[in-house]
């Protein structure tokens, strides 16, 4: 019995670690570019996935692993505070949506998925995570421009607009793709 609990614990840890690895891998694949520059990447998906499956804490740990992993694989650093905000912080907050996901049960009584609820939970998790990540990037932008831009320029507005440019499409794509993934997971377990 004791052994089974330990296997479960180790399995959860390994799944979180591999999800973060998948996220780092996906961040290196640019699937499509946006017409006005910038690109959509799917690195947030595995983090949201873990947040739905194992809750907020696991999601935040997966996000932290992703942030530190990206840092180690060669990040661009222009300011010490920007380093902390743009990498570990921005990705850790992605998992916070997971704390709310457990409030809504996605399963029906006969253990099948309730499609509408899966959509609801996915959108909630993606929305909370993305908005928080956006806020952290905006803050980081403000720190960066406060240091490097001349005084008297409208720093906050510029940071808000610039970061929205890639976060909004990322949010939409993540929400669209998370639903089939969560449902496919259910099919895998029943196997």
């Amino acid at each position: 019995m004791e052994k089974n609990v330990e296997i479960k614990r180790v399995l959860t840890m390994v799944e979180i670690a591999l999800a973060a690895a998948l996220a780092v891998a996906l961040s290196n694949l640019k699937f499509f570019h946006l017409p006005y520059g910038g690109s959509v990447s799917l690195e947030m998906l595995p983090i949201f996935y873990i947040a739905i499956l194992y809750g907020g804490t696991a999601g935040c740990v997966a996000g932290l692993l992703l942030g530190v992993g990206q840092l180690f694989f060669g990040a661009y650093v222009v300011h010490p505070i920007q380093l902390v905000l743009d990498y570990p912080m921005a990705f850790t907050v992605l998992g916070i949506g997971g704390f709310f996901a457990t409030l809504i049960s996605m399963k029906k009584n006969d253990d099948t998925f309730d499609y509408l609820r899966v959509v609801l939970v996915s959108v909630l998790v993606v929305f909370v995570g993305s908005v928080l990540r956006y806020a952290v990037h905006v803050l980081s932008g403000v720190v960066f421009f406060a240091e490097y831009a001349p005084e008297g320029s409208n720093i906050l507005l510029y940071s808000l607009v610039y970061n929205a440019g890639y976060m909004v499409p990322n949010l939409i794509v993540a929400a669209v793709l998370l639903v089939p993934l969560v449902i496919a997971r259910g099919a895998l377990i029943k196997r």
Partner: protein
Amino acid sequence: MPQDSFIHGLDPRVKFIALILFMVTLFFIEAPLKFLLMGLVILLIIQSSKIPLGFVIKGIIPFVWLFLFAAFAHFFFTPGTSIKPFPIWFINVTFEGVTNGTIITLRILLIIVLSSMLTLTTTPLELTTALKRVLSPLKRFKIPVNDFTMMMMLTIRFVPILLLEAQRIINAQRSRGINFETGGLIKRAKKLVPILIPLFNLSFIRAEELAIAMVCRGYATGKERSSFRELRFSTSDLFAITSVILVIPFFFL
């Protein structure tokens, strides 16, 4: 890429501390001569790491717009004494603007080069080992540092494998006729589902096998582990850290 230089062989902790010290220093210096000295120090680091200078410069190219933005913003929008032909109409270039712009552009440039030197000469696995040492004081607060670094190592170790896996699945679905290049945002996103589902499921099947294998080999959560590569503080590390400490006071003269 060379992998056996003096810089590559240093203890990752030493490299990290040196990076932090130089970065903080960069925020305090303003005199052109000090920037020149810092540039020389960084050039010396690049030379002794045997990394071709062209490769380092290539890494800066994506940031050109950033330098231009920082430079031009200062050149044209800083109040002060105008340089001769200006102000023309509303365009004004001031003496203060040019100095500030140059200082700030140089500062961003040098910070980017410095931080890329750390990741170019240190493998992610070495960085994780260093992270384990740096975080170990947190064990006092009941934070599971060992488990976290084990996960970090797994993440780092599996990135190349999963990247290969992803490429394989993308090619497989392409050969079945998926065209990723057409359609709007949501339509294109939906085309990624046949890539993501196999990719996710393969990863999690792998996770299950890995977890069972780890438990069978005696892995237990929260226990102290020994590692294959032990970090050792060598004479060259001592030499490196002393030279950094000796050179830094020159920036504050």
